[in-house]
């Protein structure tokens, strides 16, 4: 499955350019309002730490959706199962965005944007949970994608608003309490805020429930595996998918 990297030769640079573009756009808007930092972080760093996990999340979801149909030719080999494709794409996305994240943060650091790292092990722990969460959702998507073609249209519609409520461009500490009650159900928000807490010293978030995040991650994985086990044969059987 390693050869799948070949596809992304051009995509590599985009992995860095894309979040940078978002960061740039937000920074300009934010600068127009005059404030220079958000919740104790300078804003490029803040946006960067929000947009990368979010892009990663939406990317894996959309990729998983098409993973079965896109890799159809590989199922000619009996050892290749759909979950391999989901896993491969997921690993690839994580690797790309991880490298991109580290790269962008270190570039900012060398150019004098100050921040202090808090806990690397904590960060990796959160990333691991995030990985499981994405894997679960990815498996679900891989099952849904080929069985309901419309999902390719619906998913972007669902992901778009998630962008607004996942704390990409605002810290939860600035959100009034009465909204927090609802916002904190959003696992993506959890991931992003947790990442910031673990990455940066002095960053704070009003709720900290690693238990909730773990629960969501593992249940997503559980449901994902269940759905996949249930429909694996159907994904491979000709006539269910190809005739559409």
């Amino acid at each position, binding site marked *: *499955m*390693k*050869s799948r990297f*070949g*596809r992304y030769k051009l995509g590599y640079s985009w992995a860095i350019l894309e979040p940078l573009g978002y960061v740039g756009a937000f920074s300009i808007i934010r600068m127009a309002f005059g404030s220079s930092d958000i919740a104790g972080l300078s804003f490029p760093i803040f946006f960067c730490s929000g947009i990368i996990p979010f892009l990663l999340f939406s990317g894996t979801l959309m990729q998983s959706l098409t993973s079965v149909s896109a890799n*159809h*030719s*590989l*199922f*000619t*080999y*009996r*050892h*290749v199962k759909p979950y391999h494709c989901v896993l491969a794409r997921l690993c690839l996305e994580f690797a790309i965005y991880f490298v991109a994240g580290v790269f962008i943060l270190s570039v900012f650091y060398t150019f004098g944007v100050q921040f202090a790292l808090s806990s690397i092990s904590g960060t990796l722990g959160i990333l691991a949970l995030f990985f499981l969460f994405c894997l679960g959702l990815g498996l679900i998507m891989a099952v849904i994608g080929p069985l309901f073609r419309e999902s390719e249209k619906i998913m972007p519609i669902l992901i778009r608003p998630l962008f607004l409520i996942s704390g990409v461009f605002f810290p939860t500490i600035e959100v009034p309490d009465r909204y927090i009650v609802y916002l904190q159900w959003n696992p993506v928000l959890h991931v992003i805020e947790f990442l910031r807490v673990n990455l940066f010293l002095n960053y704070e978030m009003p709720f900290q429930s690693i238990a909730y995040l773990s629960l969501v991650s593992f249940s997503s994985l559980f449901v994902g595996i269940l759905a996949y086990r249930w429909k694996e*044969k159907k994904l*491979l*059987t*000709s*006539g*269910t998918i190809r*005739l559409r």
Partner: protein
Amino acid sequence: MFRIENLTKSYRINNGRHYIFKDITVDFPENANIAILGPNGAGKSSLLRILGGIDYPDSGRVICDKTMSWPLGIAGGFIGHLTGRENCDLVCRIYGLNKVKIEDTLETIKELSGLGKYFEEPIGYYSTGMNGRLNFSLSMAFDFEYLLIDELTSVGDRHFREKARNTLDEKRSTCNVIMVSHSAAIVRDFCEHGILLKDGQMQVFDNLDDALKAYFPAADIPKTARLSSYGSDLDDVLKLPQELEGDSNQTLKRRLNLILKELHEQIDQSDRIEDEATVCHRLGVLFFQLGKWNDSLEFHQKAIYLDEQNLAFYPPYLNCLFQLGRLEDAIEVLERVLGWNPNHPILLSQKGTLMQRLGRNEEAVIALKSAVDLEPENPDRYFQLASLQHINAQFEDALSSALTAIKLNPNFSPCFELLSRILAEMNRWEESVEAKLKFGRLTSESKPSPRDWGKIYSDIISKVETEFRKVK
């Protein structure tokens, strides 16, 4: 032990479900090369996919303790934007070869496939034949006990097929072939057992010839596929008609014999199956023109037997069956061929003629109408439709069809004759007479010369000669 047990496989189609196998239990011959035969849509490829473990039946199972290759087919198996080398590398990794071995394997594949520099180009640029060659060569890199091949025409040209055959022979003791193919000649090259899929049934033949016979019911197939082996009969068959015995025709006779000799040589030399089929086809056409229907039929059958997929072989074959009055056989052939290719205008128009002769006029009209739709520029189709509508007493329709035909070809003399009869039926006498007069004028202009056999034959001969120049 190699058997399939209670196998059921169905596909969802627009209205309901189509079963290709229903609760089938069959023992496969062990350690044998098996050809899977059957009309399109009988489930040959599905069977291969199930055997290869990449498709699942609705119920039932395959019992086999041998390793199977992936189904080698025209489509699938490769990623288009990766090069041949990268794709092979990927598959080697999937099958768990180690790094050192992969290096060697890739070189072997490159050599066997004969792709040369194209091996380093993306698969997306490959032709079907190149794709098949790579696929086959790749599969040779692994020690499969069964090689599943879907349409070996996908394995390139005759030359490569021989190479493939040799490579397979080397592996003979460990590797067998299960093959789907429409070409009897190719199947003969590789297999000795046959399985016939038809109407949801699976029939195992220990002898490939029996299977082929069962599959080509209309044709009585000779034991050998090579033309040259019955070439000696050719002279007998071609004994010239009585009319040619006169002195003045001696030169013609000699020329005809010369051509025949040339034909013999050509057949002997040709080792490309495609050519052999074409030669048979042309011989069939020649005999048809000479009025020797039975011989013509024999050669047409051979042509089709050698290259079943060539649609151009069917119309003259059907004409022959018509001439011999074997309408039942004609129906069977027509339905089989139209099953693969429902939009073939000539075949459709032939179906129309056939149905008309069987008195099934409604079906005839439907067939002819679709033929007309497919070839709206061809006056012959309209003429045929018009005459049928005339017989069915649909005079208005017949009139408009006939007029369209005349519009497309203003000198279409038989059509004027028909037009005149149609108009007469509609009591439009004056116009009818006019059409008849026009018919008279046209036919007197292009009246054939009196029964000059020599002329007609020399025409045929020069035609055949030019045809064969083309082949060369």
